[in-house]
């Protein structure tokens, strides 16, 4: 009897929520209305149109200030000609109001490989537009490894999916998984709708994933993340750790993989009580790996996706010290990280073993790794594997970093 009553209460609650959504409206201030109506120029009108749409979609009641916008859509391969033109127009009257960092572009400014003049021209137009807007030319998908992190609980607007998931889950920041366009809108307005992961209630997971084995490598965590993104549609997912928690490198891999497969924007660690439990066993892990890993070997090792930080470079350097890589190996990292790594001798050690650094760019839809040059690529990144296969049509062999170094290096 009690369960029937509670089921009815839940049903009535759901109906009321639905009704609320139908009649809900995002309230704009007079100033925001004026901007929406184009009284401060076309860029602000476009930005408020975007904020209004995502505000309506998420059922927000108001816009709130954010401290930092991180924008995706910088690589020409991702936004194409229409994106180039859009940004050219947008940057004519738009100016950033808050700290704004941007994602990687298509190539390393210091070493232009065999890229077409057309690509270089289009990419340069995009870079110029972001510069006009006043964004910091960070060219990184791991802005949290370079810039000061605002105090815990601060609201930010991050588009790069891996950075949004990592910031919510590990750094204690609050961001929705913004789109490239909504983070762009936040950059010039300094605002985002108050909804979803900005509200404490949405940061509580309803579903918990219980791995039946202890993930031990960054690749294991990547497989877990890809599975979780597919399985969970909520804003937040919990993991029940068998023992221990992932280190920073593993947490980055987990965040990027969740970002690749789904729409979930945050993970927590915790218990399963009161939550729907989903099992993740070796069989599920193998299924994900089968889907993403199309071969056992490759012509090139690509590390990045997201870009490597000092932690990963330090680990890589210790693994390959005194060894020589047997395959070409591209290492994607931000220029700022490269500079720091150089100062402390990591770059030298990695280059001595045969590693090639690619700054300003990353594996996701890069023009540096094409089907014309490579049949297949070896990587430890789920995100790299996904986009190299689907967008660049290149085969992928997924292996964890230690295995890659073991299989593809010899003593010097």
């Amino acid at each position, binding site marked *: 009897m009690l369960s029937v009553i509670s089921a009815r209460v839940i049903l009535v609650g759901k109906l009321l929520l639905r009704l609320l959504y139908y009649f809900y409206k995002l309230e704009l201030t007079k100033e925001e209305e004026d901007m929406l109506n184009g009284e401060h120029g076309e860029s602000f009108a476009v930005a408020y149109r975007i904020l209004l749409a995502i505000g*309506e*979609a998420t059922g927000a009641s108001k816009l709130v200030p954010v401290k930092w916008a991180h924008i995706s859509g910088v690589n020409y391969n*991702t936004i194409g*000609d*229409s994106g180039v033109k859009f940004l050219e127009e947008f940057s004519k009257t738009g100016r950033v109001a808050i700290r704004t960092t941007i994602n990687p572009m298509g190539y390393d400014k210091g070493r232009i490989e065999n890229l077409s003049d057309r690509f270089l021209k289009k990419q340069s137009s995009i870079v110029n537009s972001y510069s006009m807007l006043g964004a910091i030319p960070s060219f990184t998908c791991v802005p949290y490894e370079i810039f000061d992190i605002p105090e815990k609980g601060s609201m930010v607007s991050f588009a790069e999916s891996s950075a949004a998931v990592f910031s919510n889950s590990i750094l204690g920041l609050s961001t929705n*998984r913004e789109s490239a*366009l909504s983070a762009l809108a936040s950059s010039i307005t300094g605002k985002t709708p108050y909804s979803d992961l900005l509200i404490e209630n949405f940061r509580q997971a309803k579903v918990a994933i219980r791995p039946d084995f202890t993930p031990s490598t960054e690749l294991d965590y990547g497989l877990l993340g890809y599975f979780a993104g597919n399985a969970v549609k909520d804003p937040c997912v919990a993991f029940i750790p068998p023992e221990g928690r992932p280190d920073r490198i593993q947490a980055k891999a987990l965040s990027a993989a969740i970002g690749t497969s789904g*729409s979930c924007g945050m993970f927590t660690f915790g218990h399963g009580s009161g939550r729907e439990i989903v099992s993740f066993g070796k069989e599920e892990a193998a299924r994900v790996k089968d889907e993403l890993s199309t071969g056992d070997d490759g012509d090139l090792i690509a590390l990045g996706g997201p870009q490597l930080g000092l932690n990963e470079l330090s680990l890589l350097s210790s693994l390959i010290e005194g060894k020589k890589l047997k395959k070409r190996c591209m290492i994607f990292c931000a220029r700022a990280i490269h500079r720091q790594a150089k100062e402390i001798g990591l770059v030298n050690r990695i280059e001595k073993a045969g590693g090639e650094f690619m700054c300003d760019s990353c594996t996701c839809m890069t023009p540096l790794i094409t089907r014309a040059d490579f049949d297949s690529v070896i990587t430890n990144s789920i995100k790299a594997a996904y986009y190299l296969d689907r967008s660049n049509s290149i085969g992928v062999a997924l292996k964890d970093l230690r295995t890659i170094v073991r299989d593809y290096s010899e003593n010097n």
Partner: protein
Amino acid sequence: MKSTLKCRRIVGGCGIGKAIVTEQPINFLSMLDVSRGIIKDPRHHLFRSCLRDSILVFPGAVGSSVGSYSIYALKVNCVAPAAIICSGKTDLITASGCAISEIALVDMLEKSWPSVIRNGVELEVDANNRMVTLPKQTI
């Protein structure tokens, strides 16, 4: 059989076209050929479907945040859907992409929608009046 369904307006406007229905979410950046408006991912249930002038009915976007630019590219290349219906709650990628592309976008259809909206039926989405109708009684 009901021929008008209530819905929620996300981006205003109207669109008429044949429904392309899927229960699988879409990663607009990786799964779409934006010059032709075709789903190019062989693993997607809509593989080889053309979105041009259709009414796309899908759960929402997943993956890359840049997918919002891909929706805009569809519009600029004249191969965009006439309107989009999110069968659940609209995500930020679809909402922002439609906002700058002026593609009518609605969501939260009445619960009975799966029995009415099938692949290939003609639909009229009137986002301004929060209504989805079947102009021709196809069922």
